[in-house]
């Protein structure tokens, strides 16, 4: 078979050009501009200023480093609080349970809603005086649990993680369910004959067989976590103070204030962190591919 004629290379043209010009090039260009003083007022020209933007990121009193730390923290914690419950739910809903399809549909529902909308809805729900959450706690006589969810430094991050979990658990659960469907039932039957209990089965069959689903969830989850913007921007806009600021919210502020060079520097740091993680993951995937 003549491969060259059957599978013409020009089929790749449009996606490749769009990807390179409008996705990759901005990132690379961003690296270049992060070494300049480019801003809204630089009509005359843009000057090379070396590492100055980066020095400012790490030394200024504007807590940019806190933003970087918060981003990493969000990427890590938000995944832990989503993946563990999602896995347990998936295991539960995988077995025969009446109405499990209804439950699945309901649990997945939040992940199709726009982040912005979820943020808006929860600013109302988490409102200290009138919000649904505190009202519900009153109703259940659990008033001692009432909090200033979005303004108290001690709980604001938990609120963000909670909202994100509300949105994302169903999605992770669906991916786990797909993985569970692919495990042959005979494995469990054989284990039962050998006298394995639920925990044996879970740790020695389910978890190892789910490794690719766990991987997919982690990869997409971490990539999403590092790029998080909408939920934080709408829920807290980085507040109270700068406590919940992340890299993307800082970078948007800098952009809005016309400090394009600084904004690019922050973006570049985020780009490098995700690039390192991304390359590691893609390498892992290509290894898997070779093995097949």
């Amino acid at each position: 078979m003549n491969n060259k004629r059957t599978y013409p290379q020009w089929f790749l043209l449009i996606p490749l050009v769009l990807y390179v010009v409008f996705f990759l090039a901005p990132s690379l260009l961003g690296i270049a501009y992060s070494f300049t003083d480019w801003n809204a007022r630089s009509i005359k020209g843009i000057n090379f200023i070396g590492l100055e933007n980066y020095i400012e990121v790490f030394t200024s009193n504007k807590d940019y480093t806190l933003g970087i730390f918060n981003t990493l923290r969000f990427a890590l914690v938000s995944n832990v609080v989503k993946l563990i419950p999602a896995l347990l739910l998936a295991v539960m809903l995988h077995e025969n349970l009446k109405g499990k399809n209804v439950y699945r549909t309901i649990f997945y529902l939040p992940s199709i809603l726009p982040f912005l909308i979820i943020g808006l809805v929860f600013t109302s729900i988490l409102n200290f005086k009138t919000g649904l959450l505190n009202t519900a706690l009153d109703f259940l006589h659990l008033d001692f649990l009432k909090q200033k969810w979005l303004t108290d430094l001690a709980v604001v991050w938990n609120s963000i993680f909670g909202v994100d979990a509300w949105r994302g658990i169903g999605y992770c659960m669906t991916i786990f369910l797909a993985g569970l469907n692919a495990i042959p039932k005979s494995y469990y039957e054989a284990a039962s004959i050998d006298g394995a209990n639920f925990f044996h089965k879970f740790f020695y069959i389910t978890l190892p067989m789910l490794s690719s689903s766990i991987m997919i969830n982690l990869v997409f989850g971490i990539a999403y976590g590092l790029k998080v913007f909408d939920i934080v921007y709408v829920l807290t806009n980085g507040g109270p103070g700068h406590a919940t600021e992340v890299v993307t919210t800082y970078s948007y502020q800098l952009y809005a204030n016309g400090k394009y060079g600084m904004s690019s520097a922050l973006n570049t740091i985020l780009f490098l962190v995700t690039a390192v993680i991304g390359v590691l993951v893609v390498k892992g995937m290509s290894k898997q591919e070779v093995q097949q």
Partner: protein
Amino acid sequence: MKKFQLQTVIKHVVCIILSIIVLAPLYMVLINSFKSKTESARMSLSLPTEWFFSNYAIVIEQGKLLQGFFNSFLYAGVSTSIAVLTCAMAAFVLCRKRTKLNKGLYFFILSGLFFPINYVTLVKILTTFGVANTRLGLIIAFTSSMIPFCVFVIRNFIITIPVEFDEAALIDGAGPVKLFFQIIVPLIKPVLITVFILEFMGVWSDFMTPLYLSGSSSMWPMNLAVYNFFGKMTSNWNYVFADIVLTCLPVILLYIVGQRYIVGGLTSGGVKE
């Protein structure tokens, strides 16, 4: 047997509690969107004492929602169609002709799954092409940003299609274009629909891209219009909620219609072939 039943009961209790946690906020939004301003401010779950269906008419008029709906539909429809079609073609070649170059290109595209988009410089590049602050510019940005995901998922599906189909078509004298559109596309239709739905909803939900890239309010998609409306109407939760309902309705309908494909797609994308 008794133990088994107890387990089932516990499972149902857990599931019902979780369902309430998921549904209560949505119910609250829906029910309060029909209330008066003062009543909606209390955000209770009770039925409205008087139903204000007019909230919706007011929101559509003042919130620029028709314009927003048109924009969202245009952005999501056009960019997703282009991306799905062209990425399917690319994924087909990447999958069938595994030269060293193509393997490299595949992982090169795949790495885009992780990178954040640098909007600051994207605006500059769009300006260079003369499409900054235009709907076309936004469509280009949306299309480009979904390429890695589309290529990744569609390629994973094409792998499962036996090469024999191609060979049979070639013997019948089909060229590559005919082979792709008449043989391959019908075979991979499920994954194309899945990716289309997921990415359509993705664009519909995207807040950051239009926030950076749309210059004038006439270009706002629905959710940016909602956000702006919220900024102006913070005390009118009834309007804000009505606005939210209207914005979510299209994606919820799409979800109900295409649920089968979404779950199927997560399966094919999520599990190694």
